[in-house]
C-alpha cells in the first residue's frame, strides 16, 4: 500500500518549546492509525502540523511522497477532513452547516441534495429532522458526527480525528466504526477510548513529544 503520510524525524517547536521531538512514522492508504498517550504528549499537534497549523522546525513531513510546504498544503487540505474535539459548525442550522463548504469556490458545483444530506445523517445514526435544528442547540457528540458527515459529503479520503468517540454512546460509536470500516478511507486519529484503539490497525504511543511505542493490530 502506498504511504499517504510520512513523518520523518519531525520536530515542532512553538515559542521555543519543543512539542514534537524527532518523530518518524508512516500511515499507508486505507490504514487506521491511532495516536495515544497522556495529555500534553503532542498527539493533537501531530494532526495540526499535518494541516500546516504549526510549522515544522526540524525533519520533514511528506504527503503522498511530497514534502509539506506552501505548494503542497492546498492538496493536503483538500484531501483531508479534520474533526476536533469541539468542532465548529460555522452556521446557524445543521443544514447550513452541512452545506457550508459548498459555498466555497472549490466545492460550489457539487452541492448535495436534501436526500443526500439525509442519507449521510442516517449513516451516522442521526435523524433527518436534525437538519432544521439550530447548531447551538445540539450536543457535542452530534456536532462531531455532523462534522464527520460534512467530510463524507465532500468525499474526503483522509480523516484526522481528535477524540471523535469521546462524547458518543455505544450505538453512535458503532455507526462511526462502520463508516471507517471502508478500506478506501485512511484515518490518523487521537484517542483514549480503548474500543477505538482496539479497532485501529496501528497504535502509536507518544510521551513528551517522542514516539515511544509502535504496535500493529492484526484484525485478520
Amino acid at each position, binding site marked *: 500500500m502506498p504511504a499517504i503520510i510520512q513523518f520523518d524525524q519531525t520536530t515542532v517547536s512553538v515559542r521555543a518549546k519543543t512539542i514534537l521531538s524527532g518523530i518518524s512514522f508512516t500511515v499507508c492508504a486505507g490504514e487506521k492509525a491511532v495516536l495515544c498517550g497522556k495529555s500534553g504528549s503532542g498527539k493533537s499537534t501531530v494532526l495540526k502540523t499535518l494541516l500546516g*497549523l504549526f510549522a515544522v522546525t526540524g525533519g520533514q513531513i511528506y504527503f503522498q511522497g511530497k514534502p509539506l*510546504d506552501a505548494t503542497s498544503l492546498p492538496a493536503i487540505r483538500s484531501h*483531508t477532513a479534520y474533526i476536533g474535539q469541539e468542532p465548529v459548525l*460555522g452556521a446557524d442550522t445543521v443544514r447550513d452547516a452541512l452545506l*457550508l463548504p459548498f459555498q466555497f*469556490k472549490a*466545492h460550489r458545483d457539487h452541492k448535495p441534495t436534501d436526500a443526500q444530506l439525509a442519507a449521510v445523517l442516517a449513516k451516522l445514526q442521526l435523524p433527518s429532522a436534525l437538519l432544521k435544528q439550530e447548531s447551538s442547540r445540539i450536543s457535542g457528540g452530534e456536532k462531531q458526527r455532523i462534522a464527520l458527515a*460534512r467530510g463524507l459529503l465532500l468525499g474526503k479520503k483522509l480523516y484526522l480525528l481528535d477524540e471523535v468517540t469521546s462524547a458518543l454512546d455505544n450505538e453512535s460509536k458503532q455507526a462511526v466504526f462502520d463508516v471507517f470500516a471502508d478500506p478506501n478511507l485512511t484515518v490518523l486519529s487521537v484517542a483514549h477510548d480503548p474500543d477505538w484503539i482496539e479497532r485501529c490497525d496501528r497504535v502509536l504511543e507518544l510521551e513528551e513529544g517522542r514516539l515511544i511505542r509502535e504496535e500493529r493490530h492484526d484484525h485478520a
Partner: protein
Amino acid sequence: MTTLDIALPKMAVLYGLCFVPWLLLWLIGLRLSRDIAVSILRMSVQLALVGFYLKTLFSLNDPWLNGLWILVMLTVADLSILQRAGLKVRYFVLPTFAAIALGTLFATFYLVVLVIQPTHYYDARYIVPLAGMILGNCLQGNVIALERFYSALHKNENEYLTFLLLGATRWEAVRPYYRTAIKAALSPTIASMSTMGLVSLPGMMTGQILGGSEPWLAVKYQIAIMVCIFTSTTLACVVNLKLSLRAAFNDYDVLKDEVIKTR
C-alpha cells in the same frame, strides 16, 4: 462680515469653563486633574503650532511644501492608526500608509480639482485643511476596521481554520470578518450623514459661518466634505484590510501570532 477676535484675556475666561467639568469629575470621585490639564495643554500647544505653520504654509503656498506637509500628516495618521488598533507597526506600516494615502489623496484631489477648482490645485488654503479633515475621519474608520477585523479573527481562529479546512481560500475564509469590520468602520460616517443638521451643526459648517461665509456656501462645502469623507474612508478601509492580509498571515494561511500586540 468679519469674525470677532478672541483676545488673550478672553481666552483666559474660556479656559475657566473647564473648571465646571473638572469640579463635576472631582465631586463624583474621578481624579482626572492631571489628565485633563495635560490634554488641554497639549491641545493648546498643538493648535498654536498648527496656527503658526498654516500661516507660513499659506503665505509660501509652495506645492512641494504643501505636499511634504500632507506626507507628514499621512505618516502620523498611519502610526496612530496602528497604535490604536493594537497592531505591530512593522507588519502593517506600509499597507496602512498606502491605503490611507490612496483614500485621502483621491478624495481630496477629486474635490479640489474637479469640484472647487481654485486657480492653483495645490493652493494650501484648500488642499491642507480639506486633506486634514478627510484624513482625520479616515483615521477613525481605519482604526475601527483593523481593530474589529483582527480581534474577530483572533477570537474566532477555530472557525476561520474550519473554513480553510473545508476548502475555503484565505480570502473566502476571512470574508465574514472582513464584511463585519468594514460595516462597523463605516457606520459612524453613515449615521453622521443621516442625522447631519438635525442632531448637530457640523464643525466645518459652523466654522465657515462664524468665518463670515453665507450659510448656503457653508452647506455646500459641508456636503462636499461629507461625501469625500465617506468615499475616502470606504476606499481606505477596503484597501487597507485587503493589503494587510499578506503581512498578517504566514504561507500556510495561519494568522501570525506576533502581529497583534499583547493587551
